[in-house]
């Protein structure tokens, strides 16, 4: 038996004795029954100490057992099967101090225990979700970030899960997607670790893996779409973020980048409670876009001095070199010109209804949501008129408004007991999503390139590079997604100290991606995205994908009170996960008039793609707790994955953590201002698996035209991959330590955390020497990356008076990232983002230079620039510093609340692709056209244009730091007595909110410091070319409860 199996077996057997019952339970040695079989019922009500109102959602558990319950809408609870005798109830809920209460339970009897809770900002006693189930925050030695989604979505303009996480937790960076309705962002937790694999965290929804893969076959040019976008934030109760391997070890392979654990809303005991909302909104792209310039002149023969008659573009540097003579300057702004302006405010509306409630027989939650959003893109009236004349009919609505999202989501969750000691939770969700996006990205014929690289005068296309805006918007891109997600969770407690759980789920998504333009429509000048003149500039690309993921988990947890002060929880389990993606891609060019499908295309092409992957793992964890203040946990998980090399066996991920609420010790000094001190430390490993076929040597079948048989295309085989029998997962090891403080009667909570995360055996697509003729890369385990940093979280209740309250939350982090080792591989040295040992991943590099206006003519030419001898590091492309600062002001006993959120990112750089496009390629920026432009800008443009200066972009790269006003919301609650009397309801609230409201400060000269087309799961870098800025939204929302 391999050693790891022996080790795990030993761990199980060591843990087993702790599950044996303690001797004193046997009251009568001759009796056939023990005290553990005598049980009773505990009923009660939990209320707020200040208001005496019942508190819903309070966790009430019996210490030393696995039995417990949650309070209903009135604060009432019932716990059955409580062992008879003296017991202790543990009562906890977010926002309140942990409380215990003694209770004496008679065999077969019923006892009432009412508990009052004191409000506190303390987070220590919140319940968070881990791989082994729900635990109190105080029990785990690593930090877990939490977002109460229900509260946030009611008052903040949140449209997707990424916005829910942005700027609300330290160490979690949400890299904004493109400014297109329906686009997705990227999540980075504690930096970037992987060179070749995804840096996205694992997403788990209700215990089941939820795919956040990029939309397969995404044909929306330039728009990043991840599957997480299809999860409706209105359906989420809370989100816990496990930040690193020290906590994620039990999630095994695929968890090295952290885990985002999402729990959807559930029903509670009590009468049906309805919540409905309606929202109207507006989206806009308000940024200032630059005008385009052209300096005109006439060519000059440098030898004879003769001036040619024809008018040509004459840039400053060319005129200074005597190559031409400037005589005029023209300018046009296609972003604002009536002929070409592509933007206009986009309206949106959404609404939803939720109902929850339950009895002892069943608890339920049902939700229906509908969103209709129109993005801020609109065909200008001039173009509508032009196309109406040309086509004989007006353009279609989806061409006039090329960015639209219609989303319907339905969720239902039901929980019911199936025996006195067993219950079943079923949760199902369905999303139907229809997204249209404008043609953009870095396609030459796309919106951004056409307008940014346009000449500085009104040309045949009214001021764009070559395409009419109406034709650009007539290229249609569409994603239709239907996604069904379901999970089943069964819990059985056959004996009070043993809890068995079976969890399973399915995530099934069907998507239809398409990009098309019909005859007589769309871009025409040059091969825009596919079809050309011979194909009537018409065609359709379609990608139809079915994605099917299964998750199943079995878990057993035994809880025993070993002594009066020592408690043990042993958990063991197994998990199997399988993902499959099945795609059919079709391309058809040359459509006849009226034809809209592949079938009618003159040339057709089809390919298929299948990717399957499976993981099987098992885990064991032992937790000892002493006096409910000192917790020690050790665990291990071992995984096998179908993508590992044949000679690689199981991979083991160990973990250990310690949590000590030292302030509860008698010896700890007492201060009036210091309520609580918790020390914590943790260690763990998690992994990331390679691609499905990375370990395999294989040939690829393709068809080729034959040189010997005219007109025939015949099947051929090519060696595509050398494979790697030794390929194993990349392992990330993390050490974390920190302290939690409760100050000033828990009005201020502070969490300070330091971490060091080292990824070894990094999976790297080693570039193969092309002369090998064996594919471009070979996947090897070779690199090492380190991320280290500090995180700070402050939650404070600054003012707590009757007319006015003020709460703040600050979260910030500093994360330093470094590529430590790359083995013997020689890394590529492209301009811009590259990986260099000893420096951050995907840092910006190029050749520095110095310059001087030697002849004082106010124009920099190439000869006045001196290039350095070697490339240098300009800066990282991932922020080293990030922070979020939110304030909540309450007026008139919370009748009116104002929330603000400010977002900061610091110490990082952008390639500034727009600058290159304009000043180097198109030559339409003021720097190269307008006399008097700054010498520094001129030098940057000239250096990037000159082959003798290696076209260095050193001066083009720009610092990207910014502070943004991310959100403001003002909510007004109608007093409950008026809601009941006049509206027959329970609650009513109106909320005015805005998102991405303003850039308060930035060093970045581009349109938006967050615009980044390099945002993706895999790649790094930071470049704003072809990326619209973040959309600003305003919303008014009405929440009504009845």
């Amino acid at each position, binding site marked *: 038996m391999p050693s790891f199996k022996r080790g795990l077996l030993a761990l199980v057997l060591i843990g087993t004795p702790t599950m044996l019952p303690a001797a004193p339970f046997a009251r009568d040695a001759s009796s056939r029954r023990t005290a*553990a079989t005598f049980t009773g019922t505990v009923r009660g009500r939990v209320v707020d100490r200040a208001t005496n109102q019942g508190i819903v959602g309070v966790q009430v558990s019996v210490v030393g057992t696995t039995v417990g319950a949650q309070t209903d809408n009135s604060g009432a609870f019932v716990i059955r099967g409580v062992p008879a005798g003296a017991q202790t109830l543990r009562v906890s809920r977010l926002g309140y101090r942990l409380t215990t209460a003694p209770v004496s339970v008679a065999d077969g009897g019923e006892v009432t225990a009412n508990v009052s809770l004191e409000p506190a900002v303390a987070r220590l006693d919140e319940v968070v979700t881990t791989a082994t189930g729900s635990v109190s925050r105080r029990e785990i030695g690593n930090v877990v970030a939490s977002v109460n989604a229900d509260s946030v979505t009611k008052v903040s303009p949140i449209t997707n899960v990424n916005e829910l996480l942005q700027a609300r937790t330290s160490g979690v960076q949400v890299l904004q997607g493109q400014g297109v309705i329906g686009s997705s962002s990227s999540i980075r937790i504690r930096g970037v670790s992987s060179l070749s694999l995804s840096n996205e965290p694992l997403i788990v929804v209700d215990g089941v893996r939820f795919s956040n893969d990029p939309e397969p076959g995404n044909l929306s040019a330039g728009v990043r779409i991840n599957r997480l976008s299809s999860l409706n934030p209105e359906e989420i109760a809370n989100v816990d973020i496990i930040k690193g391997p020290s906590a994620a070890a039990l999630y095994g392979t695929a968890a090295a980048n952290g885990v985002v654990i999402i729990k959807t809303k559930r029903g509670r005991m009590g009468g049906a409670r309805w919540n409905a909302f309606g929202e109207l909104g507006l989206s806009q792209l308000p940024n200032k876009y630059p005008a385009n310039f052209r300096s005109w002149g006439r060519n000059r023969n440098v030898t004879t001095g003769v001036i040619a008659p024809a008018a040509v573009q004459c840039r400053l540097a060319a005129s200074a070199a005597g190559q031409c003579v400037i005589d005029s300057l023209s300018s046009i702004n296609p972003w604002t010109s009536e002929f070409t302006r592509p933007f206009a405010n986009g309206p949106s509306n959404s609404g939803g209804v939720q109902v929850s409630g339950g009895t002892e027989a069943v608890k339920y939650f049902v939700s229906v949501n509908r969103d209709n959003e129109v993005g801020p893109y609109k065909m200008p009236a001039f173009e509508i008129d032009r196309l109406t004349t040309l086509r004989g009919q007006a353009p279609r609505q989806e061409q006039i408004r090329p960015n639209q999202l219609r989303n319907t989501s339905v969720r239902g969750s039901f929980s019911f007991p199936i025996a006195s000691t067993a219950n079943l939770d079923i949760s199902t969700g369905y999303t139907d999503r229809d997204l249209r996006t404008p043609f953009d990205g870095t396609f030459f014929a796309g919106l951004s390139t056409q307008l940014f690289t346009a000449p500085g005068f009104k040309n045949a296309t009214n001021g764009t590079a070559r395409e009419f805006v109406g034709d650009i918007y007539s290229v249609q891109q569409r994603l239709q997604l239907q996604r069904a997600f379901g999970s089943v969770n069964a819990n059985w407690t056959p004996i009070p100290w043993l809890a068995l759980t079976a969890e399973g789920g399915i995530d099934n998504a069907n998507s239809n991606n398409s990009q098309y333009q019909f005859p007589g429509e769309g871009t025409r000048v040059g091969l825009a995205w596919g079809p050309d003149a011979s194909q009537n500039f018409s065609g359709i690309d379609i990608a139809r994908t079915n994605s099917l993921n299964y998750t199943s988990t079995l878990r057993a947890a035994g809880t025993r009170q070993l002594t009066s002060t020592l408690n043990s929880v042993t958990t063991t389990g197994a998990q199997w996960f399988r993902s499959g993606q099945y795609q059919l891609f079709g391309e058809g060019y040359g459509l006849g008039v009226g034809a809209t499908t592949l079938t009618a295309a003159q040339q057709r092409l089809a390919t298929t793609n299948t990717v*399957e992957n499976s993981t099987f793992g098992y885990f064991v964890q032992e937790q000892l707790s002493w006096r409910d203040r000192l917790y020690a946990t050790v665990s291990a998980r071992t995984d096998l994955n179908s993508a590992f090399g044949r000679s690689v066996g199981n991979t083991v991920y160990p973990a250990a953590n310690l949590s000590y609420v030292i302030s509860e010790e008698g010896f700890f000094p007492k201060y009036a201002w210091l309520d609580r001190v918790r020390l914590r430390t943790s260690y763990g490993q998690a992994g990331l698996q390679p691609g499905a076929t990375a370990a395999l040597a294989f040939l*690829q079948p393709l068809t080729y035209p034959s040189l010997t048989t005219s007109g025939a295309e015949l099947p051929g085989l090519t060696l595509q991959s050398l494979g790697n029998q030794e390929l194993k997962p990349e392992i990330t090891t993390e050490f974390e330590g920190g302290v939690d403080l409760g100050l000033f009667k828990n009005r201020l909570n502070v969490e300070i955390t330091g971490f060091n995360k080292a990824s070894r055996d990094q999976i790297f697509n080693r570039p193969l020497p092309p002369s090998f003729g064996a594919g471009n890369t070979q996947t090897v385990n070779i690199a090492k990356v380190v991320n280290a940093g500090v995180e700070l979280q402050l939650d404070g209740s600054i003012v707590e008076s009757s007319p006015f309250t003020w709460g703040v939350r600050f979260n910030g982090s500093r994360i330093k990232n470094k590529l430590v080792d790359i083995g013997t591989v020689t890394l590529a040295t492209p301009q811009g983002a590259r990986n260099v040992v000893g420096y951050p991943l995907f840092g910006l590099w190029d050749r520095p230079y110095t310059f001087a206006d030697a002849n004082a003519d106010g124009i920099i030419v190439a000869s006045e620039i001196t290039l350095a001898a070697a490339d240098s590091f300009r800066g990282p492309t991932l922020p080293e510093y990030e922070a979020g600062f939110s304030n909540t002001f309450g007026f008139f006993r919370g009748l009116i609340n104002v929330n603000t959120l400010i977002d900061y990112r610091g110490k990082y750089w952008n390639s500034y692709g727009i600058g290159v496009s304009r000043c180097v390629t198109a030559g339409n920026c003021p720097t190269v056209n307008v006399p008097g432009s700054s010498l520094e800008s001129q030098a940057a443009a000239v250096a990037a244009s*000159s082959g003798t200066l290696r076209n260095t972009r050193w001066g083009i790269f720009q610092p990207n730091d910014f502070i943004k006003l991310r959100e403001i919301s003002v909510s007004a609650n109608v007093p409950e007595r008026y809601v009941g009397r006049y509206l027959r309801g329970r609650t009513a609230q109106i909320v005015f909110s805005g998102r991405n409201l303003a850039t308060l400060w930035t060093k970045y000269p581009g349109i938006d410091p967050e615009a980044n087309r390099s945002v993706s799961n895999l790649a790094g870098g930071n470049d704003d070319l072809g990326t619209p800025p973040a959309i600003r939204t305003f919303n008014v929302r009405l929440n009504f409860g009845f």
Partner: protein
Amino acid sequence: MNIRTQVGALAFTAMAAGAGLTACDRITDPLLDVDTPDIVTLDKAASAAGAQSLFIAAQGDFARFIGGDRAGSSPLGLNLIGGLLADELISTRSGTEHVDNRSVLPATFPSNSWTQVGVSYARILRAIKAIETFPPATGGKDQLALLHALEGMLLTVTAETYCNGIPLWDGESDTDPQTKTLSTAELYTAAIAQFDLAIGGTTVANTISMATIGKARAVMNQATPTTRATSFASAATLVAGIPTSYRFNVVFGTSTSGLGNAIYDWANATKNFSAVDKEGGNGLDYISSADPRVKVDPTKVSAGQDGTRTAQLNQYTSLDAPVTVASGIESRLIAAESQLANGDATWIVTLNNARATIGLAPLTPAATPAGQVDQLFRERGFWMYLTAHRLGDMRRLVRQYGRDAETVYPTGSYFKGGAYGTDVVLPPAQEEMNNPNWTGCTDKKA
């Protein structure tokens, strides 16, 4: 539940866990079984049918080597990349094209062209090995001869395009490939050996003609300033019997994703690259001459991808337009150059006879020997426009005729700003630095 039952439940749990651990493989194997229908494992290719598939792929990859691929990240053929470095094309795509302005950076776009050299060469060698091991029922020798001819042509065009001292697969191991470094001279010698194998290994006239012209081309390249006359005469003798109408084309398809005429895709359709007239002062007058051999329409001027306005290039008018690799016209040009090098005044007659086949007016010989050489190379440039010949010709002008590179290659101010660099050849791409057996170009001379 009594204590005995509890202990029993625990014992059962422990045993189940232990049994699960020991029985892992029986449980895990079916759970980890996945399908990979898109790939073909190596064992499936070890057969006669597999050998034929490798043969088909080798031909397709050779076509891609010469004439490139469709837009995207696919490689550009050497006729395009060579044309950029020479004077046949300019880059009208966004940004500065380092190959076009002769200041090649190691990681410059498009490194995939070098990748295609290695891929194409390796696939030809694998196909040869496979057919030798698993020959078809009939025609095996003809297939081998064709492959040898393709290998010879690949080596020749590679030697004309890249620097001195490039790595190529040694043909031994598939799973642990190694390379050998070959000098330019060694490449031509190896090419000639391959052409000889092709010529002697088949009776298929098409293959023999292509190999013969290829051999003559390689022989021409081997010449030095002092051996010019004799080498060229040998080459002329080789091709004397090739009919003027002969053509060997590589073909492309429209239904295969990733195999289309790159010049059509990149230059005609998207205008990332464009035809140019008298590039850098030294370039040929491809546009203003209105020569029918170079199909450029100066009346149709439009903006390239970067806004530069250029004439429509119609040299290849569809994705499946073939590219001529060897031709009877090339044979006549070889003969004319040999005659000129050997003082035979009928060199101009040979050129004019070729011109007459498409109705071009006869040329009058230039007044000076240098002018006559210019005339001959101008004819070569126009007849073999965008067929991966021009760069090799420019190098021969420098190497064999003693011209200064800055009087042959485009030079001076670059139209996007700055000035041309001084590169005359291409280097292998950056990724080749991961090859432990290669330390860089021996030299980058013409």
